């Protein structure tokens, strides 16, 4: 009983930390310890969020759309690259080092070039997200595919299975855990990527909203949008977790 209580408390610890942070934030701002124009109170932020609610949602929708397409295409690209490289050893040796090297280029730094080339629309944002998300997926998937149990592959061969069947029945399941680990990273990358590309240039989106409210020193709105972005990222990661639990039911314990 005591043990159970403790485990619940431990799970709730992060919540306490958040509540405490908000409390401290409230105290230092409401008492004027930190000037309000510098750091708005939690109440100000909530108010700003309410005032701009529809507008914020419209912009969030744009950012999410970009993130969705970028992430989808980035993941597809990453998985495909991993499968092809796992299949052709020579290609792996030729391309993998380059792929790793390419990651030393800060991908967000190419955002301005993409904007110059492809304009202020969604395309450059989606491209940037593809470039930033495919890599973690490709690397993790490759590790996963290569971690497949050799004896299972042998068993599959004794049944006369072809490469595609071995990929489907052994290698892909072996990389599921790696896939979701990389997806969790890529989801955050996709939102950050979209926002950064919108800072550089765009017509709508949370990044554009941020640059606009920054120009007029609307700190409360700044904070509102930051909270919104964090919230959206958190929500997406929870969705990935849920997806993982759905696709990997054998990890959930007894099923009889």
């Amino acid at each position, binding site marked *: 009983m005591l043990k159970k209580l403790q485990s619940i408390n431990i799970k709730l610890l992060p919540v306490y930390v958040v509540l405490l942070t908000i409390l401290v934030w409230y105290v230092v701002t409401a008492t004027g310890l930190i000037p309000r124009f510098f750091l708005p109170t939690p109440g100000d932020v909530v108010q700003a969020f309410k005032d701009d609610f529809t507008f914020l949602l419209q912009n969030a929708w744009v950012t999410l759309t970009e993130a969705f397409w970028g992430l989808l295409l980035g993941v597809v690209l990453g998985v495909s690259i991993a499968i092809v490289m796992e299949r052709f050893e020579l290609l792996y040796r030729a391309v993998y080092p380059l792929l790793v090297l390419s990651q030393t280029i800060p991908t967000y730094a190419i955002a301005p070039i993409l904007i110059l080339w492809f304009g202020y629309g969604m395309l450059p944002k989606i491209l940037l997200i593809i470039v930033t998300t495919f890599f973690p997926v490709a690397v993790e998937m490759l590790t996963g595919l290569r971690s497949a149990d050799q004896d*299972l592959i042998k*068993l599959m061969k*004794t049944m*006369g299975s072809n490469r595609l069947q071995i990929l489907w*029945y052994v290698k892909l399941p072996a990389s599921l855990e790696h896939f979701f680990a990389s997806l969790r990273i890529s989801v955050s990358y996709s939102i950050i990527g979209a926002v950064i590309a919108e800072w550089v240039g765009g017509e709508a989106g949370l990044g554009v909203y941020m640059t606009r409210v920054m120009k007029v020193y609307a700190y409360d709105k700044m904070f509102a949008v930051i909270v919104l972005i964090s919230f959206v990222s958190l929500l997406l990661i929870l969705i990935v977790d849920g997806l993982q639990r759905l696709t990997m039911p054998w990890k959930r314990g007894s099923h009889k």
Partner: protein
Amino acid sequence: MILDVKNVTQSFDGQQIIQKINLQVAKGEIVSLLGVSGSGKTTLFNVIAGLNQPASGDVLLAGTSILNQPGQVSYMLQKDLLMPYRTVLDNVILPLLITGTSKKLARKQALPFFEEFGLTGYAKSYPDELSGGMRQRAALLRTYLFHKPVALLDEPFSALDAITKRALHRWYLEIMGKIHLSTLLITHDIDEALVLSNRIYVLAQKPSIIVDEINIPEALHQQPEFELSDEFLQLKRRIITDLNI
């Protein structure tokens, strides 16, 4: 002869492991291959299963060579190799799926065997939830569902405790009486070989050759308490002498 292994020699890195192995399995027969660890039993199985090419020799299945042709015999590897991410039912139907049966039909074909294989109620469980004995039975069912004329079983019972093993031997003999699966079985357990087989090949020396072939008349198996009989002890002594242990 359903399976005919002819003069199979295999070497790795220039070193001979098995030399001129000749053995046969007749239809419906259970034949054991007995040998100490490292004597090359699995090596021979890999050749029969078409996974590895032998240095020399041939393997005939119902008269035609099956060298380098995987998928001709049912093979249960030394580990149960149940996929943790598939339910027991979806594990055992794997050979059916590989050979092109639809999932729905494969499940329908496999389910009636669950009772016989002591897996009733566990179709939708994951392998993690099974006991050691059940895992082996599931792996055996998967092997059986491959529906090939010969089954190769690589130490199917060696991972089990003595009591579970005994129970499984009984069950195995009983089920074999019904399905008549021609079987070549690897073991390094002399008692197990004697209890289960119609015939035993003893593998010994370096490189390994077949040093003895022992027929166990059906009458002995029928005898109550065969395992405690003088005949049993005599055969056991003979094998121990063969193995030089």
